[in-house]
């Protein structure tokens, strides 16, 4: 850079800086990658997302199972089967392998889970598909969990 060009740039910068006013540009231009694991032990077990309180599993509620199955058929079955790997993993026995809160967080905040939770990250590496957020409410996700409880784990391979 020629010295004169440098000086002119300097003046230009000074002039711009002096204008001030519009200083609402974000401080950092890029979002740095999230630091390794900052998850709490609770989050490691129960997942990251809107479910932050324990969910109690009682005797299976048939009414909720019916609701949950209808939701599952509409919003989940395009990618998940009970007993076979499909677009995503087989879900038979998933409640048991995972905490119900984990399953609900995966349903309600798949993007957060894939970015932050080591298990979800691992699954993303296996299936290579970003699981869509299907817009369920926490109550609906709870019904899906109730339905999933009725699906037995596939026989060991």
């Amino acid at each position, binding site marked *: 850079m020629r010295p004169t060009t440098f000086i*002119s740039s300097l003046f230009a910068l000074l*002039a711009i800086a002096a204008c001030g006013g519009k200083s609402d540009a974000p401080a950092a231009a890029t979002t740095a990658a999230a630091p390794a694991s900052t998850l709490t032990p609770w989050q490691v077990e129960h997942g990251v997302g809107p479910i932050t309180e324990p969910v109690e599993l009682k005797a299976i509620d048939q009414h909720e199972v019916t609701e949950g199955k209808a939701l599952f058929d*509409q919003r989940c*079955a*395009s990618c998940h089967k009970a007993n076979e790997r499909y677009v995503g993993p087989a879900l038979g026995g998933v409640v048991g392998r995972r905490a119900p809160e984990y399953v609900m967080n995966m349903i309600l905040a798949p993007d957060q889970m894939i970015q932050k939770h080591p298990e979800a990250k691992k699954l993303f590496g296996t299936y290579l598909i970003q699981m869509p957020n299907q817009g369920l409410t926490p109550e609906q996700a709870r019904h899906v969990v109730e339905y999933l409880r009725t699906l037995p784990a596939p026989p060991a391979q």
Partner: protein
Amino acid sequence: MRTPTFRHWRPATFVAAALVALAACGRPTRSSSASDAASRVYVAPGEKDEFYAFFSGGFSGQVSVYGLPSGRHFKTMKVFSQDPETGYGYSEQTRAMLNTSYGFVPWDDSHHPELSQTAGVPDGRWLFINGNNTPRIARMDLTSMETAEIIEIPHSAGNHASPFVTENTEYTVAATRFSVPTPQRDVPISSYRENFIGALTFVKVDSSSGRMAIAFQIRVPGYDYDLSSAGKGPSHGWVFFTSYNSEEANTLLEVNASQHDKDFVAAVNWKRAEACIAQGKGTKEPARYAHNTVGADHIARTEWGTSVTVITPATCPGLAYFLPTPKSPHGANVDPTGELIAAGGKLATVIPVFSFSKMLAAIEANAVDTVIHGIPVLKYESVLAGEVPEPGLGPLHTEYDGQGHAYTSMFVSSEVVKWDTKTFQVLDRIPAYYAIGHLMIPGGDSRKPWGKYLIALNKITKDRYLPTGPELTQSAQLIDITGERMQILLDFPTVGEPHYAQALPASLIQDRQLKVYDLAHNTDPWATRGEGEAGVTRRGNVVHVKMTAIRSHFMPDNIEGVQVGDSVYFHVTNVEQDWDVPHGFAVTGMNNSELLVMPGETRSIVWVPTKPGVFPFYCTDFCSALHQEMQGYIRVSARGSSVPLTANTTRR
């Protein structure tokens, strides 16, 4: 000549340049420096604009959505023109939107967007726009930014003075730019004076659903009705229409329709019309017109209107008055107080400003020059509030800032003129590049303008942008009107002719934007609410494919047993329930369009294979990392082939 570069400048020059730059940061000056203007229209990445602006597309037939002050284009709403990008007007669910009594009309010339109002202020519920060519009014829903309804206006030609709304959107109006024989029939054109008539149409808008219905038509002399504006506050209950060609010429209008010193603004009392009709003074006349509505199932259907109630000024005294107006007026624009009506005479040397209260007094005092077809012509001086002297050449259209200032576009002298609504004196003027038609201030035609910016809507750009062959862009110019003097900030190209526009603060509608259609409430008869319902069926030569789309596959993805000449209907349901995840659908050689299917929505399109083979279909909207994998095949066999109809709905 050598181009100066920094290399040849002396240090003193830099100091001077920096000082100039610094000076520009202070109080806005007339010729704002580029950086000052830029900072005032700059919306940083990730930040949002302050206003939504809706620009008509003119001959594109659509409406475009922009942000202000940035001038960024967000979306083009599909209204009167087929859109092969989304399938609007091609898909089975949307084709009926473009039905008219003239048949399927897949285009129009859209001129004036108009926001619905409550208490004289834009309420952010609906946007209306007129189809100028095949007379229609469309209503867009501002939560989905999609066209919800189109109603055809019978007994009309060139629906120009439309679709301006009354104070509480009781009505949206329409009028004939071209008077025509009514009812239409085969007559000599030279019989214009006997047979050609005009119609002012009032379309009722349901206050909760927005649904339109033709309430009545007022039969008026065979002039050309151009623009209109509804009364507000004290003048609520009236609508003012401009007209030209009071000569009733039918050849070489550019000369023959400019003979009279004065044409007219028609002041119409619609409450009086309602009263006369209630007294049985309206007559029902046969008419056939299309009324196209999107139902709760998200499917457009056409109902046919069969009659219209007609009323004439002669049978309903007090319904309409003519205000003499110099030389072919264009706009007749009511100010925020509801007292003043500024009329832009395209060939006039002044801007006449009428007074509503004086008009009422003149009616009371019977200050009438003559009566035309039952319409009293009030004396010019008796209704005049004042004249803006020497405003410029070709005044067209006026809007207001709510601070006692009016702004009028000057087509011929290509400028915006600011004047005082008390003294009628010109306060400021600024050039427009070039040939400004309408202008727009957010809410500038309402009782409460957000008088921060003005948009000049220009017809011609000539040397303003990089040239693009014979066809050049049109443009809009953003002008700051907060100071004593107007200041141009930004110049941006537009989609189609930006004939007129409307704008409102983003906060009124941005949080009400629909994100997805609820799959659970998808009642399309061909909806596939989950892969379990996907499949194919044949009924004679018609094959129906019920198909789901989700990141990143179609179900079914392989189809066999289709034959040459079959009509194959693809009914694609996007089973996603996440915002901003539409899926596209297209088969090789489709003769109509591709589809763009919003989350939770079903869209259907027909494909008629013409030769045997195996043809791919795929998602056209880049939806995910595995978008390129989102594909399938359809096998087409010869007519009469024994290949059974099958669809793969498994992974294998």
